[in-house]
């Protein structure tokens, strides 16, 4: 039986009176790459924010790596340390240098000695090819470099799962490529990834499964080839015809 690292069952979420997520069921196996797409406001970001509990769900259950996400705080910080996240707006810490951005959490959350943390950070910065920028501040870097640093920062916690929340939406076309390259490399290294993106090229190249969401529901979930070759629902067809 394949190892299910994320299990979401009948999950519902409301913002006030408005239901953003309706009856979500999703299983993610280890080392799988999943791309979530759909029109804006369809709840994609909210879904992946629920996985590391940046948002709370009201009904149903989310089990990440064998731990159910509930109200207990200790539990949640433990899960968050195992789930890396990359944001649309990078969200680097502007008051810290690139290296300090990467070492902050390993040192203070994982209690790693400073030297080890720095070596680890440099290793991951090297992987995303910005090791030469390690002593600069985020404000001195281009958008693409900042986003790659954000990926390295998440990797420094050595997470089991990586969540990407529209990582390329705030970037120029040229910079999109360098960030996608870093993500492709990461995928090839065998990381479990859930990626919210509009980059269909990336989805075709990397994803094992594609999920299409609309109005808070999973409309279609299929293997990548299947998804692009013959989408089942009309809504998916319409979306694909507009985006491709």
């Amino acid at each position, binding site marked *: 039986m394949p190892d299910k690292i994320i299990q979401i069952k009948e999950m519902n979420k409301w913002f006030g009176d408005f239901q953003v997520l309706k009856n979500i069921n999703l299983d993610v196996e280890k080392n799988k790459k999943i791309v979530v797409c759909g029109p804006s406001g369809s709840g994609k970001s909210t879904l992946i924010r629920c996985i590391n509990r940046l948002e709370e769900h009201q009904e149903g259950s989310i089990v990440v790596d064998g731990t159910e996400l509930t109200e207990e705080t200790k539990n949640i910080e433990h899960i968050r340390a195992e789930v890396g996240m990359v944001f649309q*707006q990078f969200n680097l810490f502007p008051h810290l240098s690139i290296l300090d951005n990467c070492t902050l959490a390993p040192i203070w959350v994982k209690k790693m000695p400073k030297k080890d943390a720095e070596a680890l950070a440099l290793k991951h910065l090297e992987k995303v090819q910005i090791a030469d920028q390690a002593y600069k501040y985020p404000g001195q870097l281009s958008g693409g470099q900042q986003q790659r640093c954000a990926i390295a920062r998440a990797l420094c916690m050595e997470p089991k799962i990586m969540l990407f929340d529209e990582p390329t939406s705030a970037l120029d076309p040229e910079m999109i490529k360098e960030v996608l390259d870093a993500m492709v490399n990461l995928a090839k290294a065998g990381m479990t990834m859930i990626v919210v993106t509009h980059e269909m090229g990336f989805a075709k190249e990397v994803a094992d499964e594609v999920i299409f969401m609309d109005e808070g529901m999973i409309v279609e979930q299929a293997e990548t080839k299947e998804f692009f070759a013959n989408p089942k629902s009309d809504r998916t067809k319409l979306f694909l015809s507009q985006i491709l």
Partner: protein
Amino acid sequence: MNKLNFLSPDKNNLYAYLYSGISLFFLSILIVFLNSFFSLDLTSFLPGTISYFLPLIIGFIGLHLIRIEYSGIKFLDITNKNINTNKFNALLSLLIIFAVIKSLPPLLSWFIIDANFAGDSKDACSGSGACWAYIKTWFNRFMYGMYPNAEQWRINLSFIALAFLGGVGFFATEKFKKYLTLYYVVIYPIIAFLFIFFFISGGPIFFDFSYGIIAAVISIIIGFFIPSKFKMYYFLIIPITIYILLKYIFFYEELIELGKIQAFEWVETGAWGGLSLTFIVSFFCLIFCFPVGLFLSLGRRSDLPIIKYISIGFIEFWRGVPLITVLFMSSVMFPMFLPEDMFIDKLVRVIIAISLFEAAYVAEVIRGGLQALPRGQYDAAKSLGMGYWKMHIFVILPQALKLVIPGIANTFLALVKDTPLIFVVGLLEIVGMLNLAKTNPEWLGFAMEGYVFASIVFFIICYAMSKYSYNLEQKYKTER
């Protein structure tokens, strides 16, 4: 055509315009200067009104003639750009220059030329200018209040020691850098408080301070054997525990005996005063109100309703009452609620009152900074597995506090300038001492000198603080 050219100067006849313009401009300044310093009226042959406005007209024409864009002469371009961009600015610049020249002679004569510097009684001041002998005679009182002259070295020594302890941060090695914040926020205020309060006030109670020193020394020695993982908590808890153990359990009897020995002459806080009291009050209020305000601002944004509403209530209460009422309450009403045998010194009560009062303002300033941070910073910190305190200590507060440096400096400056209000409870800092001195029968009539002196002193303190805050802003500027 010639006439038109004269109205709009251009580069073709640059030097002709330049020389005539500059000479007209300086002529106007010369007229005002001679008039103001030597009472010479060069233009008296003209009718009254014209004579009065003539310098302005001449200067205006002069500035008009030199208003040539891109002349290529650096000094001229800078002048034009800064004081002479258009007719209105030229007029304003002239008026300001004239006002300065006009006001210099009376100021100079009051401050220096006609002032009396020597002497030690009122009779020495016969001139029409300031009587600096008055300040000189009372200087000691303005600095130390009613503190006995022979004991004033204690105040000086305390201030020097505190300045030294405060400067430790500059010499800290890389290894101790991460404890600096803890040191400045928690340890330094406590040391400073014990130091100033027990050393300057002196008397038997000084030995309370020695328990503190013993506790600190023992805990530092033990500290070397503690794994670094627990050091943070250790340095908070152990010294206080040892202090309490020493004082109340182990050596209680012995130290009571010891405590009866007079180390220094006891000087009650009522006798403290002058500039040193200004420093003491503002210093302690600053360092106490900041952490309190910080926790209040976090409390106000807390998810826990009890903490949130207590913080809101606290902030709104202190912001809603005037400082002068708070001071009255602290000195008159508060002791009534205390048990009979309990006594808290008046100065301590005043410092606590002002600290809590200002903490409410600091809290709101810091809250402004917290709200200015994008939500993504919280998300990023949380997604890396940081809990509430780690997130705030390493990610949120460093950025938020950096944003609110100007606002906090503002609050602190206001605090320093509010300290004279403590006269309502009978504590006389520098302005209070001035008020006392000016009612002395032997020195009546020199209120002006006193207030000018106090203004200068306050200006120096406040300007230094504002410069320091500006430097801090520059130091922590990392974005873009």
